[in-house]
């Protein structure tokens, strides 16, 4: 259920980071094949990540957070798709020039200025998603824009980067990654914060996808394009929603994040009202209360204790009811605490954290509650939280509760949040600063000459808006044009129109709409390439088959790979007959089964007859001529 929110008065602004895998043979910095996914492994490596000291000799916030988690990172290796580069035992090879060329084309499609000399940088990630601990990335273009809803959508820059690992599992202090995707070339397109409503975000994602597809040089399918959406409201902070899988999902995600930020700003006011203004005003006391719970039949607590863990209660002074403060629709501030504890303290056994206010299970256990309150020296306005698991992790969790409240004093912490089904998000990590970027000393820069840029421009396919213009002039609906761009049928239409002289509208409709519906019925229409479609349209424009036969011939060819259109026509017994021949066949056409008593119009009667006639004459007569013939006949009958 969406709560109402006036985006304009809330000051919602949003921008995109669109990630798009490129269609190259090899990975970005090694010679492994790109796009070869495997679900098994034949090697395993264990690593840890250690933050590097920053400029001031200190650890950056995100880095420190990720170091605190002390994760054992396991990489699963398959010799088919990774080499010693991906496992960080060999330095990078020179950057894949094919990938740079594709990136240049993408930049040009978005009206960008190409960087004269591309420098590889390292962007630190300590979650283990990349074994080196950083992603190699480089800006290829900047200062572009896309026509969007009658205005310009700023495209700040496009960078080329290596894709990360796929997560297999993340349990406690052990995270497992599969490395097949690691190192595949990916572009990141960053837009300005120009989007003002959730619907605009959705449309901008679709537009960026369309532009990428229009180049014909990007990967499609599951995971080939992913977007991060940056959201903030007035007084809030930039929050990055990571991994939005589909444009449509963005609507609810952006809305919910806007609501969350507005609520967190209200929470800030509430904290201030309670006299909590600075970090020192957030006072917690963690106490080991394992004995208090002895014999209490709460399965998750007893399991934790049996596994050698402890139960901690954390008192928050003056915190009564704060955990129940609403954040996203249907979630509360307790979920914010729970997210941080899960990620940073590695406590992931449900329910992760309970608040003293909320525990319905405790209602029937007054004695336990009373003993807890005494152990914690609780005052009227205090609240407490329960966490459970390994002792060190419980202590980290207590500290995270404190830190999250300290963040709440400022309103909205900058963070990366993971998109969940249902349009909700959960904490993933603190948003890292620009300090996590530094030059990659392993890679020389790549000079991009104006000759190279012009060569890329000459290779480029028309942009989507050029296509909309061209196809629109033929009368093709925008939706069909868009489909043809996204699914790669647009070059087929080009080939058919230029080689057979077929009408553009007919070609676009047949390939973009009719063939699409056949594919939806399970016919492998993707088997037909330009040569096949040209053969079919040659027969059509040469008057050998009627338009109605196009899809029948095409699907026959799709089902029987290797046969040509002539053969398909022969198999099907198609071929336009002289008018006398087919009109003779229609002599006996009767109006049997047609319920004349319904009082239908002549038009409806004509359509009934025509349908019946075409089933009889499929592939032998043009539908339009048949309809004319039948109309004449009906007129004659009526005039009789």
């Amino acid at each position, binding site marked *: 259920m969406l709560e109402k929110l006036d985006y304009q008065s809330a000051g919602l602004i949003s921008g995109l980071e669109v990630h798009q895998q490129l269609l190259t043979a090899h990975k970005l910095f090694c010679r492994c094949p790109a796009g070869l996914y495997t679900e098994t*492994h*034949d*090697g*395993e*490596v*264990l*690593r*840890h*990540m*250690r*933050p*590097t*000291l*920053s*400029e*001031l*000799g*200190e650890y950056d916030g995100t*880095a420190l957070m990720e170091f605190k988690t002390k994760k054992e990172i396991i990489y699963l*290796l398959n010799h088919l798709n990774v080499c*010693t580069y991906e*496992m*960080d*035992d*060999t*330095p990078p090879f020179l950057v894949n020039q094919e990938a740079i060329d594709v990136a240049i084309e993408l930049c040009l499609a978005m009206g960008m*200025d190409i*960087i*004269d*000399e*591309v*420098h590889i*940088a*390292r*962007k*630190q990630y*300590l979650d283990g998603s990349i*074994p*080196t*601990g*950083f992603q190699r*990335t*480089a*800006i290829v273009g*900047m*200062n572009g824009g896309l026509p969007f809803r009658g205005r310009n959508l700023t495209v700040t*820059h496009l*960078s080329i980067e290596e894709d990360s690992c796929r997560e297999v599992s993340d349990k406690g202090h052990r995270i497992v990654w599969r490395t097949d995707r690691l190192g595949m070339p990916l572009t990141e397109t960053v837009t300005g914060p120009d989007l003002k409503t959730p619907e605009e975000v959705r449309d901008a994602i679709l537009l960026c996808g369309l532009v990428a597809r229009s180049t014909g040089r990007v990967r499609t399918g599951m995971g080939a394009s992913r977007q991060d959406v940056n959201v903030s409201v007035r007084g809030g902070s930039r929050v990055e929603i990571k991994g939005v899988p589909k444009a449509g999902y963005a609507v609810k995600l952006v809305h919910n994040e806007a609501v969350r930020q507005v609520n967190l700003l209200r929470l800030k006011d509430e904290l201030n009202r309670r006299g909590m203004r600075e970090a020192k005003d957030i006072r917690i006391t963690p106490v080991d209360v394992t004995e208090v719970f002895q014999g209490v039949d709460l399965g998750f607590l007893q399991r934790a204790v049996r596994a050698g863990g402890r139960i901690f209660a954390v008192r928050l002074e003056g915190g009564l009811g704060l955990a129940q403060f609403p954040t996203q629709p249907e979630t509360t501030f307790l979920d914010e605490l729970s997210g941080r504890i899960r990620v940073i303290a590695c406590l992931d056994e449900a329910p992760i954290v309970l608040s003293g206010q909320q525990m319905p299970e405790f209602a029937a256990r007054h004695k336990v509650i009373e003993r807890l309150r005494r152990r914690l020296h609780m005052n009227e306005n205090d609240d407490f939280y329960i966490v459970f698991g390994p002792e060190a992790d419980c202590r980290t969790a207590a500290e995270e509760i404190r830190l999250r409240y300290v963040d709440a004093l400022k309103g909205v912490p900058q963070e990366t949040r993971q998109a969940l089904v249902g349009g909700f998000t959960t904490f993933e990590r603190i948003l890292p600063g*620009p*300090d*996590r*970027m*530094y*030059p*990659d*000393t392993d890679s*020389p*820069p790549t*000079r991009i000459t104006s000759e190279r840029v012009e060569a890329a421009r000459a290779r480029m396919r028309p942009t989507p808006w050029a296509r909309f213009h061209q196809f629109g002039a033929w009368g093709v609906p925008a939706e069909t044009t868009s489909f043809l761009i996204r699914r790669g049928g647009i070059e087929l239409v080009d080939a058919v129109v230029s080689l057979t002289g077929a009408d553009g509208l007919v070609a676009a409709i047949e390939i973009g709409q009719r063939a699409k519906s056949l594919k939806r019925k399970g016919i492998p229409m993707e088997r037909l390439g330009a040569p096949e479609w040209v053969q079919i349209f040659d027969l059509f424009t040469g008057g050998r088959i009627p338009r109605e036969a196009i899809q029948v011939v095409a699907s026959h060819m799709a089902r029987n790979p290797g046969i040509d259109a002539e053969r398909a026509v022969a198999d099907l017994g198609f071929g336009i007959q002289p008018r006398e021949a087919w009109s003779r066949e229609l002599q006996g056409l009767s109006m049997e089964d047609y319920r004349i008593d319904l009082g239908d119009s002549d038009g409806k009667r004509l359509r009934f007859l025509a349908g019946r006639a075409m089933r009889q004459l499929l592939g032998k007569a043009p539908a339009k001529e048949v309809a004319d013939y039948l109309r004449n006949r009906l007129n004659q009958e009526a005039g009789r």
Partner: protein
Amino acid sequence: MTATIPIQEREDRFQGYRGTAREALERYGIGVWSEVEIVNDRGSLFKGVILPRSETFDDLHIVVKLFNGYNVGVVASRIREARETGYKKAVYKIPEKAFPTDSRKKNVTLLGTGGTIASRLDYRTGAVIPAFTPGELYGAVPELADIANMDTKKLFGVFSENMGPEQYIALAKAIGEEIARGCDGIVIGHGTDTMSHTGAILSFMVQNSPVPIVLVGSQRSSDRPSSDAALNLMNAVRTAAECDIAEVMLCMFGPTSDNYDLLHRGTRCRKMHSSYRSTFRTIGATPLATVSRDRNENGQHFTYLTDDFLKRDKKRVPIINPSFEEKVTIQYYYPNFNPDIIDGLSDMGYRGMVIAGTGLGHINKPLYPAVKRAIQKGMTVVMTVQTIWGYAQMYVYDTGRDLLNLGIIPMDNMLPETAYMKLAWVLGQTDDPAKIREMLLAPVNHEITPREPHNGYLVLQGGLPEVEAFIGQHWK
């Protein structure tokens, strides 16, 4: 951010810039470390800091670190406007934090040769700023304070490939001094490329040590989150402080995973991969021990793989013998090896030559006269095997017997690089042929072993089903 230094007075204003790029810097009154706004012919605006340029790059581009963290090269010919908005020079300093000392902990001395085993990063240039003093080390790897008390001495600052006789001698003497001062163990920070060469020469120059002498480095530099440096350093310091083995050792990753380090004997070790973490391997024997951060099932950090080693004994007095003859060479034999090379070396006054021969220690007949001439002129010629594993057994074939008759001395299973170091060390002490032969063939520390265990030679053949099954379970 201050622009206090006038642009003309900045010494490093053009650092690395030449040609049109330098002209552009001059024209617009900007330079390295300038915070700038540059506009090009398409109206694109670059806001960031100008970085120094590598001398090996072209003279056409200016490198700007944009405020979003990325670097870009802007070609000078497209620049239309540029102005300085600020100036911020990088400060290459690492903050010190007092290294906590604990009288119950052992005292370890770290000798620096130039590798950066611990460092911090300059985020603008990607340059690595080494951490070296105890305070800097503590800032970078605070875990060290849990292991031992640290003292550090920077001997020199050279890359591994520039280590040579001068450094070996200084290092041996410094080790002697540190031992005399009563430390419990010595760690030597060293680049990995020639770490085993240094391990070999120190094994000869420093004998009878009372405490462990541990060489350590990293295969992934310490500015990377996935670096092996911190773990190697912790394990090396622990080895110096607590290990029972009082020999010259190398402490480097066992597997490529962050798991444990191996302690390799200085004379029997070799770098076997140009970039893997687990690059060092003991050849023709097994390593001495493993050392790990976590305790093993017996509650120990060390797992000894042999008991054939010199035990720690602080009462023992070391023998420091820093001798080195520089006129020594190593020649890798190949078919078509030209005798001129040997004649040339001998004419240039070379006193020693290690040959890495084929098979059991062979070279072809056309070389015999040249070898004979060299030996007659006083050159000591010794034979090792380029197969790395195995013995020079020159009595097996006629070729070998001919070579023995020429006076070539077979070095048994001494590694070629170790043989080089030993020959240089021996020739630094005597020119008596009988004495030379005697010293070469008398092992100082397992550089020649009488027996090779069957697991001294292990090269798994990938692709075989049984090996695939093994590595699938054990490749870490």
